[in-house]
């Protein structure tokens, strides 16, 4: 039994049902990536797994207990989340923002232990933001800021880390930087779960793919086994060819050209 599972989940915002009878299991120590077209319910599933959204039916289990029945701080010591959007408090420094990740480890009379200090320092080192520690977060670039948010989540020191579209709004080099960092964290033994948009990045970094459409889990498994042209067409309505990524050997999705290569216009 995996540490984090969802069984018979009905997920809904108010009356709008996004997914029903959803069963999902996050393999321990995997780098699981959830993909699917817009509005397929992938972020909703991630939010449910992170107890941000209470399922209408069914339950998310963490280490065998219903996640909502566990004390919230207790959950926060085992499972972290990088939300899709967070608001940077005005005038906060990098070090202070990262330190906020220690909240679940702190108590009224234990607000800044040696362990807090060590965790914050190593989270900043891992995300390469140590040199920015006294800078104001608002003044950083998008890529730097995302690394700072990741550092905050890392400082929480959870064995499971969920990331909701961690690469959105970043340019390509910063996307790769963040994903490489996630891969490092996975190699260190963390269970990582991310929602991603880019199929090729998903295939390159994931050890386990979850493919969703219209709130239904269409396929799951290793990227090489799951990714077929038929599946891509079925899920994304996109005809494509799949070749091996020349760098990593993982599946590389090449969408079919709408028409033949343009012939030069004769003058």
């Amino acid at each position: 039994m995996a540490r984090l599972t969802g069984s018979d989940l009905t997920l809904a915002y108010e009356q709008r049902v996004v997914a029903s009878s959803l069963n999902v299991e996050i393999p321990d120590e995997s780098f699981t990536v959830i993909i699917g077209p817009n509005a397929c319910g992938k972020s909703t599933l991630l939010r449910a797994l992170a107890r941000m959204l209470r399922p209408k039916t069914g339950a998310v289990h963490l280490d065998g207990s219903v996640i909502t029945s566990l004390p919230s701080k207790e959950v926060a010591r085992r499972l972290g989340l990088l939300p899709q959007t967070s608001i940077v408090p005005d005038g906060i420094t990098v070090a202070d923002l990262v330190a906020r990740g220690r909240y679940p480890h702190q108590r009224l009379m234990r607000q800044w232990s040696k362990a807090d200090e060590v965790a914050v320092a190593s989270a900043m080192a891992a995300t390469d933001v140590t040199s920015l520690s006294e800078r104001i977060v608002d003044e950083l670039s998008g890529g730097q800021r995302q690394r700072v948010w990741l550092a905050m989540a890392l400082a929480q020191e959870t064995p499971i880390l969920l990331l909701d579209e961690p690469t959105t709004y970043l340019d390509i080099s910063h996307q790769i930087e963040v994903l490489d960092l996630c891969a490092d964290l996975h190699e260190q033994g963390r269970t990582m779960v991310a929602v991603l948009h880019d199929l090729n990045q998903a295939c390159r970094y994931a050890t386990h793919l979850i493919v969703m459409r219209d709130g239904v889990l269409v396929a799951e498994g290793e990227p090489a086994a799951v990714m077929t042209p038929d599946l891509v067409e079925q899920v994304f309505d996109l005809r494509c060819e799949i070749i091996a990524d020349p760098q990593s050997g993982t599946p590389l999705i090449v969408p079919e050209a709408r028409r033949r290569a343009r012939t030069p216009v004769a003058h």
Partner: protein
Amino acid sequence: MTTPVRVGPYSMRPAPRALVVSLALVAASVALALVAISTGEFTVPVADIVTALFGQGTPVAELIVSQLRAPRVVTGLAVGAAFGLSGAIFQSLTRNPLGSPDFIGFTAGAATGGVLAVVMGGTAVQIAAGSMFGCVISAVLVYALAFRRGVQGYRLVLVGIGVNAVLLAADNYLLTKANINDAANAGAWLNGSLSGRGWDHALPVAIALAVLVPVCCAVSRPLRMMEMGDDAARAVGIRVEPVRAAAIVAGVLLCGVATAAAGPVMFVAMAAPQLARRLTRSPGVTLIASALTGAVLLTAADLAAQRLLAPTQLPVGVLTAAIGGTYLALLLRKDRR
């Protein structure tokens, strides 16, 4: 990063600047209180204030200190602190400096409740009850109107400004319907004033503070985390809904009890948290520093209102509105850059 203090398993990380600023604000409020109690038409030397308070002074000094000036000063400090706290809570919840109770209709609701009691010839207790009641009703109304799959700060502010306008119109309507004496009383009350405030005004605000300041301290850290968004706060283990509910109840009660004592004094709730944030250079809203700043702000404004155009006495609300309005304009100008 500041140096932590660790004793055995216990550890703290004091923010030295916030501590120094808070102590300076306490010192400032004590100094202002002493000036306000000792000076005026009849000077009471500072040394005589304590003896007068304990009934050991001359009868004149005792009357002036214990019955006239001290209760007014204490009311001012308590009301200022209550408005400052209430403003800090709602600015934090809405993540918006304009999300203060004096802008989003809560103070106005309390005022309308109070005016209703005044024009109906109510007693002081009825006026206080009216404003408390009005504050709670307007808060419920604003939250209900702004609710759509939870309450977003921005929508709350917009709805609140609308409700605020309706309530101001209601005040004016009530004034036109009242007889001339009641209308004059209500008009004076609507400005917000500390003149003639006695211990019976100071006591309810002091009790409210004694009960609600601990609540505010308990929600202060979670509230700061929630400024990053509900999901970010939940992710670190904060139970967002109960914290928010406790903060809203505390904020509304503080606003109501403060308005009941001094009338709808404008801008203290708005300006105090913003000033406190800049003084302490703290990220996000700071509750205790905001309360202290509110106390200093209102006491200083009341002192100025009494002395500036002496012997003419201005209602303190006129002064806070003038200072606060200038400050708001500067704040917006700075933010635009």
